[in-house]
């Protein structure tokens, strides 16, 4: 993603459109009947059907709901700890080994544990998404606070602000732009985690709908859900990006890379 806004160029649509036409033609010409792939036209029909029977909306609500609840829990936790660690360097140093040992555990590896504790359903998904969201929130908000202009802390001391006043009047506003970037990245991760858990085992959401369509040898429906998951992910990212730009202008767009 380049920092300079690219002008919209219609030629970029040629490749995806061409691939779609090619796929459609390939099915027509060969007359192929497949249990694993379907032509775009049938995928579209399956998508409309899924929309009509409500499964698309239900799945989206379940997936997005789980992702958002999970990210709310995880991000607030990570943000809180991250801010404290960013403000008190000695705590950060003391917790270094503990954090760096737990952080690399892939969140998905914990889902059998969450399954034991919570069983199938929402709570298990909340837990895993929350665990996965804690780390980027913690690391990025800690970095955001640590990079707050040191002179601002001198001003806080000069004004004899207490801990809470210092946190809410000086540190948070100064670190806010980078925290919002952290939020956007974490929300993206939360959606990925939610879909991954649903595909791995959970009985709700878009991922599960895809797996069921695959198991019932309905490739058109499976691909329709795949495309839809892509659209949801793309829209979520675009919305967060637009909100961030609206609030902070384009100062930050260069930091969007991660």
């Amino acid at each position: 993603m380049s920092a300079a806004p690219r002008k919209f160029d219609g030629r970029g649509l040629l490749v995806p459109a061409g691939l779609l036409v090619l796929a459609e033609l390939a099915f027509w010409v060969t007359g192929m009947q497949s249990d694993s792939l379907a032509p775009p036209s049938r995928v579209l029909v399956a998508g409309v059907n899924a929309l009509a029977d409500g499964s698309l909306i239900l799945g989206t609500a379940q997936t997005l709901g789980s992702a958002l609840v999970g990210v709310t829990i995880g991000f607030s936790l990570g943000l809180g700890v991250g801010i404290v660690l960013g403000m008190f360097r000695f705590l950060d140093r003391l917790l270094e080994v503990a954090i760096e040992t737990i952080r690399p555990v892939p969140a998905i590896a914990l889902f059998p544990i969450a399954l034991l504790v919570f069983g199938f359903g929402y709570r298990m998904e909340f837990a895993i998404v929350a665990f996965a969201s804690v780390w980027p929130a913690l690391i990025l908000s800690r970095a955001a606070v640590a990079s707050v202009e040191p002179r601002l802390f001198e001003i806080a001391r000069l004004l004899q602000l207490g801990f809470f006043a210092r946190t809410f009047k000086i540190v948070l506003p100064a670190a806010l732009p980078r925290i919002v970037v952290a939020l956007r990245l974490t929300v993206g991760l939360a959606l990925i985690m939610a879909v991954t858990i649903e595909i791995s085992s959970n009985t709700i959401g878009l991922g599960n709908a895809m797996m069921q369509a695959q198991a019932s040898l309905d490739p058109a429906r499976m691909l329709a859900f795949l495309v839809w998951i892509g659209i949801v992910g793309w829209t979520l990212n675009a919305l967060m990006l637009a909100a961030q730009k609206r609030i902070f202008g384009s100062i930050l767009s260069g930091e969007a890379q991660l």
Partner: protein
Amino acid sequence: MTARRMLWLMASFAVAVGFVMLWQAVADAKLVLPLFLPGPDRAWAALVAGIENGILATKWLGTVERMINGWLLASLAGIVIGAMMGSSAAAQTYFGPFLELIRPLPASAIIPVAIALLGLSDAMVLSVVAFGALWPMVLATVHGFASVEPRLHEVGRTLGLSRWEFIRKIALPSSLPDILAGMRISLTMALVLSVVGEMLASRDGLGNWILLSARSFRAPDLFAGVILLGVTGLVSASLLSIVEGRLLRWRATR
């Protein structure tokens, strides 16, 4: 490493040991059902036993092999694709938007499609791992190529470098930091997808091991597997940091 840093690390290590002791105390007091939360002593015993009788070690090797194969495949393909896209304006115009469309798609969503095409096989897991790890690599390489110092382009023109020479001698070395950062993200992705793939396709690996342990309520074995996965993530990331430090040593002098 200074003495101060050593002291802090030791203190930090002591804190971590404190957490493990707390975990032990919670488990001993049975505050949480032992079925869910075995103490660190039982998890450790399961880990040692699993490594000694070779079962856990074999599973671990399976996962690591999958992760590394998929990751290397993705890194190689990602750098090639990224270099082609990054060094050609035409490729950018035609393929850039396509890439932007695919990018936010969760890599795991490709798993059902891979199962439909390849069945529950090793090839399925490997292709999912490689596919998921590919995008961060492509994006990082394109980004690296896009941020090559403009004057270096002029230098290349002055020296009459061909496109291939420009890529090899100027663009690739100067995008190395981005490429390595992409490889780091890819590595995490590859580990996660290996685990998920093993769980779904019942391939011999840690993912399958922890799933089966949970199903038969062998919590110590489950925790042993999770610990081993954490160690794998930690060690692979640290190794990559060391490589990164060595390869990018020239940067510090700037």
